[in-house]
């Protein structure tokens, strides 16, 4: 009877699962270190939100996972991929920031391993439900069963030692107000989270501003590394991601400033053509519409003066 039920359940579950499946291919980028590279696209029902980079480091005291992906199913697929590579259990899951593509696979990992900056956990608690509604709208069935799971462990800037790997953690604010950056000093691998995008336009919904972000990038660029894993886009081994970020953000800031000083409307700014030198940056036109919504009002207000009462 029980067996019958199980077979029936398996048969019923099959079609849906077979239709939507993440094919995650971890790529070894350093000793003990794997990266799972996502597309540089926007969320869609085709890509299931596999548009983000995740990573894991197999230490001799357990596996350190960096970000869990956009859904329960992605988290499960990531956990399965880790089990194929090592028998070590996952002991640490470091969530770089509260965005859904980085934290919605949390459910697939032991709750006691889920760690983040306390501000990140607070932001996920605040925005999780709204993010979830939006994710169901954007990727649909891929979200099935996904629930927001808050990190249980607090991370603080400073050293973190797990087995034979020594990490250094930093807390920045430029992307969301709470952005974890992780250096594995043992291999020289810098996991920049969404503080660094490469060949993919930055997203700005919770950014405190381009100036803050750029100032922090200058600090980040001083950290010595062998290889850098951005939150989105391919890994780099030199400073090209920083140079691209700097050029693009400088252009964006100047565009908003000059547009505000000319009295342009948000709609006029949104349809600005992206300069050809940024052709390699995916989704730039799309993100310009979003960033204009997030950031342009501040520039507009700054270009006006307070009008005294008569």
């Amino acid at each position, binding site marked *: 009877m029980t067996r019958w039920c199980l077979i029936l359940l398996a048969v019923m579950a099959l079609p849906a699962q077979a239709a939507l499946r993440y094919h995650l291919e971890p790529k070894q980028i350093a000793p003990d270190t794997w990266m799972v590279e996502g597309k540089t696209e926007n969320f869609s029902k085709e890509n299931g939100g596999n548009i983000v980079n995740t990573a894991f480091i197999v230490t001799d005291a357990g596996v350190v996972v960096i970000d869990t992906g956009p859904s329960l199913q992605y988290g499960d697929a990531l956990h399965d991929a880790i089990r194929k590579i090592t028998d070590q259990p996952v002991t640490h899951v470091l969530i770089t920031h509260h965005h859904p593509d980085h934290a919605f696979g949390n459910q697939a990992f032991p709750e006691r391993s889920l760690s983040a900056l306390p501000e990140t956990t607070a932001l996920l608690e605040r925005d999780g439900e709204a993010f979830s*509604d*939006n994710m169901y*709208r954007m990727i649909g069935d891929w979200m099935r069963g996904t629930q927001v799971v808050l990190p249980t462990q607090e991370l603080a800037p400073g050293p973190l030692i797990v087995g034979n790997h020594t990490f250094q953690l930093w807390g920045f604010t430029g992307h969301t107000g709470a952005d974890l950056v992780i250096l594995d000093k043992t291999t020289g691998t810098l996991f920049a989270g969404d503080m660094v995008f490469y060949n993919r336009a930055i997203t700005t*919904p919770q950014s405190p501003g381009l100036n803050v972000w750029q100032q922090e990038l200058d600090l980040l660029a001083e950290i010595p590394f062998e290889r850098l894993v951005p939150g989105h886009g391919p890994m780099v081994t030199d400073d090209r991601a920083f140079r691209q970020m700097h050029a693009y953000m400088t252009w964006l800031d100047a565009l908003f400033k000059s547009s505000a*000083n*000319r*009295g*342009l*409307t*948000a*709609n*006029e700014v*949104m349809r600005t053509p992206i300069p050809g030198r940024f052709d390699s940056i995916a989704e730039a036109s799309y993100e310009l*519409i*979003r960033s204009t*919504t*997030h950031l342009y*009002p501040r520039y*507009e*207000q700054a*270009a*006006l*003066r*307070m*009008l*005294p*009462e*008569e």
Partner: protein
Amino acid sequence: MLRHALLLAGALASTGLAAYPKDPYGSPMWDYNLERYLGEKAEVVLDDRVNLEVPPFAEDSSQVPLTVDLSGFDTPVQKVITWVDLNPIPHLFTYVPQTRVTVVSLNFRVQQATTVRAAVQDESGVWHVGSAHVDAAGGGCTAPSQASSDPNWEEHFGQIRGGAFSPANQSRLKVYVRHPMDSGMVGNIPAFHIETLEIRDTAGGQDEPLLKMTLSESAAENPMFVFELPDAPPQYEVWMRDNNGNQFQRQVGEAL
């Protein structure tokens, strides 16, 4: 006599409901809102010169920029009406210009993906309609204003920032008002929004306002008004009144 009646009937039929052109966007609200805002007998034509701009999607459903650009509309305008087809209260704003107005821009709230419309009435009474579509996750109309959850909102209430600009030799005016613009559609928060705005000419001594505007509940919190009045002197007075009787009046100076 009979012939007269027939002619009259014919005239009625040709300007009646059946005479609306087909909606290029196929909205179920097309006929209903045309009749509601322009009248059953309104003569309506689709017109590309009525350039209505909205982003393809609403990144923030409580702040969606809408721009009516009439720089290509070369005949005098009596009246302009804008609405958001699928909002609970579709009407956004209506204005009556006494001078050429080439651009009007204002943010609106959007409840769901919808078509938006701008209808421009020419001197002969014909309505020229421009349309656009905005995709949206929605909920902008039923989301509370930020001010309604901010205990210190009164500190900034009624603050007005402004400026005059000259992009491409046009005379452009921007006015930003701190006002909750509560729609009355959210929980127990009563409607509290700016209903009327006038731009007056302080240099020319003209009696009639250069522009008279009325606003409805779809208008977004803390409105940023943009007006382009290419033929008017760059010295204005802006006057507003909300539904609680608060009046706001400011001078906006020379073009920068």
